[in-house]
């Protein structure tokens, strides 16, 4: 659905994005992670047409966003980092304006606003002035603006910033539910946001993609075990495991036990093979637990390479 092709953005001597290539299929909820200045907002601004890339192309459903930008922008809902709100307007008139900007006929607007207001939980504040709303309602109103015109792609730049834990949880649920009907590109500093909401996480560092990881998959299965046997006998035997990609061992000479970390080939059923092998060696398994790299581990490794 969206294809960033070797996109670069320079601000004078500073390169905000470099060799940025990313493909986003339809219906995916994708999280952009990175430290401040990593290039997340720049990528989003380019995609939404707020700024243009210095070089490279961005395609939306096969069309270059620069050549067909107005037609494409109709299909994109964008919530910038700073909620774009007019304090003097009521929520209803603000959303009406957002719908008109998307080119919706006036007759369809009231019903559409009611639907969006229900979805985002602002139905009871539609007649209130935005300037008088609490932080949570302001953010919801800005979020509702991004849904106006029922866009195919929703781009959310740090939507949970500044919200309390309850509001954050509600926002996560809302974004997750949007993923059923829309493609969602979403940036955050808060790792659990991305872990709980997204299908895929992309980590940026100094304008480059350094990790692109599918979440909620078992592709990187690792087993951490504690086995009562010396490393000398154990390690050669473990290396014969057919489903093992890598075996690392750390002996504990005081107890005669060995800590082992086994990385499986893909999602292979290595547990059964391991159990049979250790049983034949009469090596008791004292502890066995799956180990997955948390997003936090990946993020911290990426941030401090």
């Amino acid at each position: 659905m969206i294809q960033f092709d070797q996109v670069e953005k320079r601000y004078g001597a500073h390169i905000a994005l470099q060799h940025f290539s990313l493909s986003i299929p339809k219906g995916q909820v994708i999280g952009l992670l990175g430290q401040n200045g990593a290039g997340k907002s720049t990528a989003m601004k380019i995609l939404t047409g707020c700024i243009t890339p210095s070089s490279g192309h961005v395609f939306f459903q096969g069309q270059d966003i620069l050549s067909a930008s107005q037609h494409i922008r109709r299909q994109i809902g964008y919530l910038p980092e700073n909620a774009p709100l007019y304090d003097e307007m009521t929520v209803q008139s603000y959303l009406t304006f957002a719908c008109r900007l998307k080119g919706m006929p006036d007759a369809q607007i009231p019903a559409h606003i009611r639907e969006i207001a229900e979805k985002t939980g602002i139905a009871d504040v539609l007649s209130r002035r935005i300037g008088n709303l609490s932080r949570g309602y302001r953010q919801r109103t800005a979020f509702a603006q991004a849904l106006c015109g029922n866009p195919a792609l929703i781009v959310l730049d740090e939507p949970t910033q500044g919200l309390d834990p309850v509001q954050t949880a509600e926002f996560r649920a809302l974004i997750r539910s949007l993923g059923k009907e829309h493609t969602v590109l979403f940036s955050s500093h808060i790792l659990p946001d991305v872990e709980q909401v997204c299908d895929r996480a992309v980590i940026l560092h100094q304008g480059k993609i350094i990790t692109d990881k599918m979440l909620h998959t078992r592709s990187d299965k690792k087993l951490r075990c504690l086995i009562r046997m010396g490393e000398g006998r154990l390690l050669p035997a473990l290396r014969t495991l057919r489903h093992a990609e890598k075996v690392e061992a750390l002996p504990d000479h005081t107890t005669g036990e060995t800590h082992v970390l086994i990385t499986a080939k893909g999602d292979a059923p290595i547990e059964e093979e391991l159990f049979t092998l250790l049983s034949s060696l009469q090596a008791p398994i004292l502890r066995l637990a799956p180990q997955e790299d948390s997003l936090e581990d990946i993020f911290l490794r990426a941030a401090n390479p």
Partner: protein
Amino acid sequence: MRAIFRRELQGYFFTPIGYVFVGVFLLLGGIFFGAGNLAERSGNMTYLLRNMSYLWMLLCPILTMRLFAGERSRGTDQMLLSSPVSLTSIVLGKFFAACTVMMITVVLTFTYPVLVILFGKLYFAETAATYLGFILQGGCFIALDILLTSLAHSQVTAAILAFGVNLAVWLSDAVATALHGHVAASVLSFFSLNQRFTPFAMGQISYANLLYSLLFMSAMLFLCVRILNRQRTQEE
């Protein structure tokens, strides 16, 4: 463009800005009318409108300062830039909204000629021609100040910048007089908005000056679109 126009027009009257502009304009206009027409028992609207034309220079920055600088400081510019509305439509929508507030003010000043009709004699043709020049001059100042607000990042900066440039445009007349005979004087006179108003204030509908005013507004708005487009490309 209609969506932008309607929002901007609402924005003027949902905030004090529209009321301040209309109120201050009518207050100062009333003082000019009282001192120049009522006290002098004069039905000369040309003199009044000539004096009131100074108010465009003073008050147009209030009307335009929020148009782009305000959007930028609130972050709502990103909502507009990511919408399927062209930059030209955004600029025109804002320009026509500001011109509508200006026209509301102008219509309210019709009270003065009505008072003259009731208690004296009004020269309709001369007054109509002067009003046309007066409105065109107001439109030119609005277009110029919209261009300047697109360069600023805060409303205060936009207002100060617009006021300074308006004053310079106004003073260009005096500078041209001082440089009498010099080629620079001809150039300054050609670009002077006050000089363009003079024939209208004499009751003449000058097509050259009419065309000049329309071209001036178009040029300012075109430059504004180019500047916004360049900001989108460069973003500093």
